[in-house]
């Protein structure tokens, strides 16, 4: 609001500016500052402690020559796109079902939402159990007489990501459902009447009318789900530990292991810089679209 050289420009909205100080500090010092710090030290040879021993792009060269990093990225892409799509689909499906004036709505909603109250550690642990071939589902089915039944997603490199996905969806789709439900309830019922009159089938109404109207909901959901995907770490640790082999390694785990297990800070910094670059490339255009053209520009 305050602009060029007004009589009292600097002190205009002073309390608003003072109130924004924590945010400015967080954004600049923590997020920008720490990011810059991370990037700077990714050009060094820091091991346990950060030290200004410059090695140029050596860390990046090594990073992109490391098979585990490549696998981690591939895994994140596969898991991420599936998680994003499925949690949106599942969340929307649940919300649409709950929105059908069903009985026991509160009960169903609670059932779908409660996993979100539990930590990823707990989620990983319990799903590791349920999917464990020795005493989980496989064991139960075999004891029913199907001796050859095999269901060991966590121990099959080709399936392990889906095993993690099952747990990730279990944990997160309830929140997506809540967001979607809120979005559905915010839609003017005239829209429904209009489509009924026009004889548009319900599923078509959802896909071509309702979902486009819920754009803000999808934006919020997208931010929440995507940030969760990129930060994926605890679940992997608790459920698979990155295994079998390297089949469920993810970038966040690579970063953490590089920094604290291998004690090669700079390598971890290089990896996290790559992650940040990727995120920034996704967010900045989005932010531009989201706020750039708006009235508050």
């Amino acid at each position, binding site marked *: 609001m305050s602009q060029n050289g007004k009589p009292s420009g600097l002190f205009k909205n002073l309390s608003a500016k003072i109130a924004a100080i924590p945010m400015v500090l967080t954004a600049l010092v923590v997020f920008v500052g720490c990011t810059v710090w991370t990037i700077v030290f990714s050009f060094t040879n820091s*091991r*346990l*402690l950060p030290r200004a021993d410059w090695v140029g792009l050596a860390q990046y060269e090594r990073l992109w020559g*490391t*098979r*585990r990093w490549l696998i981690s990225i591939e895994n994140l892409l596969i898991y991420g796109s599936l998680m994003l799509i499925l949690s949106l689909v599942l969340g929307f499906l649940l919300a649409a079902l709950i929105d059908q004036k069903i009985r026991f709505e509160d009960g169903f909603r609670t059932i779908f939402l409660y996993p979100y109250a539990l930590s990823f550690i707990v989620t990983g642990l319990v799903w*590791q159990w349920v999917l*464990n*071939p*020795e005493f989980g589902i496989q064991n139960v089915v075999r004891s029913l007489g199907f001796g050859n039944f095999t269901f*060991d997603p*966590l*121990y099959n*490199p080709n399936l392990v990501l889906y095993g993690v996905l099952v747990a990730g969806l279990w944990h997160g789709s309830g929140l997506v459902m809540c967001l979607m439900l809120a979005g559905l309830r915010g839609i003017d019922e005239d829209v429904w009447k209009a489509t009924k009159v026009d004889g548009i089938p319900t599923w078509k109404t959802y896909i071509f009318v309702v979902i486009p109207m819920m754009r803000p909901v999808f934006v919020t959901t997208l931010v929440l789900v995507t940030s969760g995907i990129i930060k994926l770490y605890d679940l992997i*640790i608790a459920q*698979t*530990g*990155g*295994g*079998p*082999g*390297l*089949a469920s390694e993810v970038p966040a785990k690579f970063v*953490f*292991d*590089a*920094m*604290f*297990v*291998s*004690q*090669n800070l700079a*390598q971890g910094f290089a990896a996290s810089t790559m992650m940040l670059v990727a995120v920034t490339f996704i967010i900045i255009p989005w932010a531009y679209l989201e706020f750039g053209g708006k009235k508050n520009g």
Partner: protein
Amino acid sequence: MTSLKPLTFCLLASTAWLPAHATNLEVTHWWTSGSEADAIRVIAEAFAESGHTWVDGAIAGAGGIARPLITSRITGGDPMGATQFTHSSAMRELIESGFMRDVTELAQTQGWKDAIFPQSLLDSCTFEGKIFCVPSNIHSQQWLWLNNSVFIDNGLDVPQNWDAFVAAAPVLRENGIIPLAQGQQAWQQQLLFNVLMVSIGGPDLFERIYREREPEFAAGPEMSAVFVAAGEARDMMRGSNIQEWNLAAQLVADGRAAGQIMGDWVQGEFMQAGMTPGEDLTCLPGLGVHQYITAAGDAFYFPKVTDPDVIAAQDILVGTIVAPETQLAFTKAKGALPVRLDIELVDPTPCMQRGMEILSQGNVVESVNTMVSPDTLGRVTDLVVEFFADTRFSVEQAQAEFVDIIASAD
């Protein structure tokens, strides 16, 4: 369980009835399981007799959680009074940066040079001629544990070395038994690989590769034999779909698997499952081939602090850890070997006796942790984890990649 007052009560009470010089000494460690907690309690109680207060900072999960936490605390300028850490070059940077306290003086007055055995333990603690840590116990890794009844029930002799074990594997497999049970966690697979290296390749190869970092040895025929053995282990492990080592031990104890390669701490697990070492359970140090063990163990480090009271408390803890009485009770509780020879073990199992024998013969190899950086070890770990998980990963390719890692190791 000995009744120990809850910490809060201790803290409150300490101001009330302990002597004025009583100091809180915060000790971090990752010994959280039952037997480990019993063991640390021995030290804590011995320490508490001095009138100081032990503030327990237990954090489970050695590599992933406790280590970053401990280093963060030290570098963050809020160090604990003392911390458990494995002998390793991991600590070296902290020492180099002057974060850690030099305990050489205490070592001299307490005569560690004569008391501590094997001396390599002290070597690991030494940096530029000064001693920075107190070894507390020894764990050895190079053990193959076999369930005797599994072999006998299947009409086989209990193998006495790796080759015999490999030969028995097809029969076991036919009868639906997993020959080798191993947890899938990365550290266990790394342990397995390095055990194979010491036991199949021999201690000389091990040290040549890791200490001298000679790529030609890594590419040589002895190392090829190690990788062949690793390939055999990979086949024998197929079907042991578990994460934790204690579950692997359970498979062995249940007779669903025949054997496991794991450090001496697993013995407690077998005994808990009702097996008697020497009767139901065969233990083969060095896989029955090269009977060498690593004398690596745990140690306590002391961050540099300025508070003289805390320094005094640190002094007392140093003395407590190496004192023979503490060593006796502590290692017994932990199922580990003591760091000094002048201790008579009470009721040692045949396996522990065998371990002591090997130690006293000096058949000791240095731990891989002290020879290469965690970074290099991490790369080796990544390689073997991938190798053990993927049957299409050829022995030759694995060895070639191993050579690369050793060539650039530090």
